[in-house]
């Protein structure tokens, strides 16, 4: 509070000149100096690139102008028209990619949340070797993305992969070995890999959240005859609600923007079923060298995510005010 009040008094100097000036002399600059590194970094890492991206989206920034951006002609809204014209090839592909990404985000977030919650609740009680399980569960999250996902890529190969070896050769589930990385199965593979990577994060956050739920509440409810599920629904869920609100939002944003998983899993041969939107935008910019169009798509994605986040927070906040 002190930090924000200092500049505001400074701004009111017109009304009370003498007092204002006197107060200003005593280290009025300190808050600014303390804030400066953060503000500057934020500016250069987030705000400037973002504004640049928005600016690029209005340019016809194709390969003809890529080495001299200033010469790129103004495209107005044309890049946006192209992206949103769902009857033409570019817009249709973007829409398909968008729908796939929505399905992907919803499934990955919900399954990860369920798995993370289940594991966190089970590991809430202390038992021997509990820490072993905790550590084990966190391994996928701790592994470098590339290492984890490329291993899945090997495992999911049709002829040499261990998945087909296990399901086909050992368990005899099918005669003809299926493809996992091309065709429609690619979506399933992508889900499995993404959930494998994401659920430990849900687990970690929920486990931390559960630490703050006092034990005596459970004991009291047990005295009243509440069983495990009732306890979870009426005590655990409400108590970890603040964690959940943030967790679901953060997971959704990460998963929706996921680039690494499809990029490493599919390489240059990405199947349409695994065409997630950030990957799609990357290809739209880098394979075609049309950075204006790619930026327009990015801006649309940004707007969509802002909208979703806004609605989500509004709904969640209203509910918590009512509660």
């Amino acid at each position, binding site marked *: 509070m002190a930090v924000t009040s200092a500049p505001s008094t400074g701004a009111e100097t017109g009304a009370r000149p003498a007092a204002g000036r006197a107060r200003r002399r005593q280290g009025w600059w300190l808050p600014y100096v303390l804030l400066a590194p953060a503000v500057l970094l934020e500016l250069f890492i987030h705000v*400037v690139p973002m*504004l*640049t991206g928005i*600016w690029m989206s209005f340019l*016809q920034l*194709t*390969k*003809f102008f*890529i*080495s*001299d*951006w*200033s010469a790129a002609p103004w*495209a107005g809204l044309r890049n946006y028209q*192209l992206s949103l014209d769902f009857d*033409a*090839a*570019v817009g249709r*592909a973007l829409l398909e990619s968008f729908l796939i990404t929505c399905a992907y985000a919803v499934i990955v977030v919900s399954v990860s949340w369920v798995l993370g919650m289940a594991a966190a609740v089970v590991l809430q009680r202390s038992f021997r070797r509990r820490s072993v399980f905790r550590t084990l569960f966190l391994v996928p999250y701790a592994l470098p993305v590339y290492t984890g996902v490329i291993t899945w890529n090997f495992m999911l*190969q*049709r*002829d040499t992969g261990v998945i087909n070896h296990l399901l086909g050769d050992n368990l005899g589930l099918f005669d003809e070995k*299926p*493809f996992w*990385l*091309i*065709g*429609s*199965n690619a979506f399933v593979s992508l889900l499995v890999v993404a959930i494998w990577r994401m659920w430990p994060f849900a687990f970690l956050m929920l486990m931390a959240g559960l630490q703050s739920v006092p034990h005596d509440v459970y004991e009291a409810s047990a005295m009243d005859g509440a069983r495990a599920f009732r306890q979870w629904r009426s005590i655990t869920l409400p108590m970890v609600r603040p964690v959940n609100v943030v967790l679901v939002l953060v997971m959704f944003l990460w998963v929706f923007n996921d680039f690494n998983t499809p990029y490493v899993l599919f*390489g*240059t*041969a990405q*199947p*349409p079923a695994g065409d997630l939107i950030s990957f799609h935008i990357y290809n739209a910019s*880098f*394979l*075609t*060298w*049309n*950075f*204006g*169009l790619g930026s327009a798509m990015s801006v649309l994605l940004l707007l969509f995510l802002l909208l979703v986040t806004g609605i989500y927070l509004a709904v969640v906040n209203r509910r918590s005010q009512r509660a």
Partner: protein
Amino acid sequence: MRTRTLTATAAVTALLLGATAACSSGSGEPSSEGGDVTLTYWASNQGTSLDNDREVLTPVLDAFTAETGIKVELEAIGWNDLQTRIQTAVTSGQGPDVVNIGNTWAVSLQVTGAFLPFGDAEMEAIGGADKFVRTALETGGAEGSDPTSVPLYGLAYGLYYNKAMFADAGLEPPTTWEEMVSAAQALTDPAQDRYGFALAAGSYTENNHFAFINAAQNGAEVFDAEGNPTFTEDGVVEGIMRYLDLMQTDQVVNPSNAQYDNGSFAVTDFANGKVAMILNQNNANATIVANGMADDAYGVVAFPAPADAESDVASHVAGINLSIFANTEHEDESLQFVEYMTSPEVQEQLGKPFAALPVLNDAEAVFTDNLEEAATFTEIYNTRSKPLPLVPAEDQFETTVGQAMNEMFATIATGGTVTEDDVRAAMQTAQDQVAASIG
């Protein structure tokens, strides 16, 4: 509101311009004659591995340093990364001095303006335009312009066949598409995991080459005279269909090949005797031998066209070109280096380890000791190769059509059917994407 946006835009622009200016002036050491100059050179992957590339090139570059006093810092880059790296370099202005490019990208990169044009003076400095094979030099840039790249290694596609398998089945090397398919069918036995053919069916770079070559055999062009795409032309669609049918109706290709996202998988299958034939550029030699197949165990013929084809084109003019970044601070030294790399001595020295065809007039093919193979490839390169379209959108043809073919092969491999209408629809989409990307 509007003023604020304008101010913000102006501020960002100023910042960016400042940043780029700072970057370009900060890069590299001040130019000076002789002694202290170090050139950065990005080499593409030509040998059996990036390590092998470094091994082969290092003594060649050391000899250049000994001769001229110019040091060369070498970075060998794999094909999956090279295009992105060049792109980043072009966009940021932070690049090497000299770079290898796939010759089919030449015009697409030329229009970015990032490469130094070889005008009369520059051409003179590297030994004159006349030293190069004409078709090879023509890939260096758009027609009627000063090229922005010069040929370094020549490559061409050939049909490699396993001599023993053909002899056992009493087959002759094919001279028409029909003979090739029936030979492949005779040699296919899925129960024993043996197929007539292996294709890099998941590689968009390989796929688009065969879209082009098959279309060319049908007498079709993929771009018209104005540089607009014509992918939906009958000859193109039928050519693509013919190639897809190797897996779909002829069933001489293992469906697993739909996951082969680079040529080396097919080459390995061939070297291990799992398949009787592959289509590859002549640099497959090194990999075949490295995988344990003796170099007299296989033969090479030209990729055959159908008996009633309009043209017997068997390859595109494949190869690697050498470009100089226009913003280099060591233009003279870079030109000296290009002159050195394209000199008869170095060409002869690198021809063998990189299995490259000569790009210089009057040079002999030295990439193999097998005279017959050398003669076959030289003939394909000199008389049966057609350059990929020399238009700015050529790279868009490669990515869109290549990706579409990846998807169609995936459909076939996973049990679906691809009809001529499907191909036409996919080509229409690809064509629309190209049109959109030109902007």
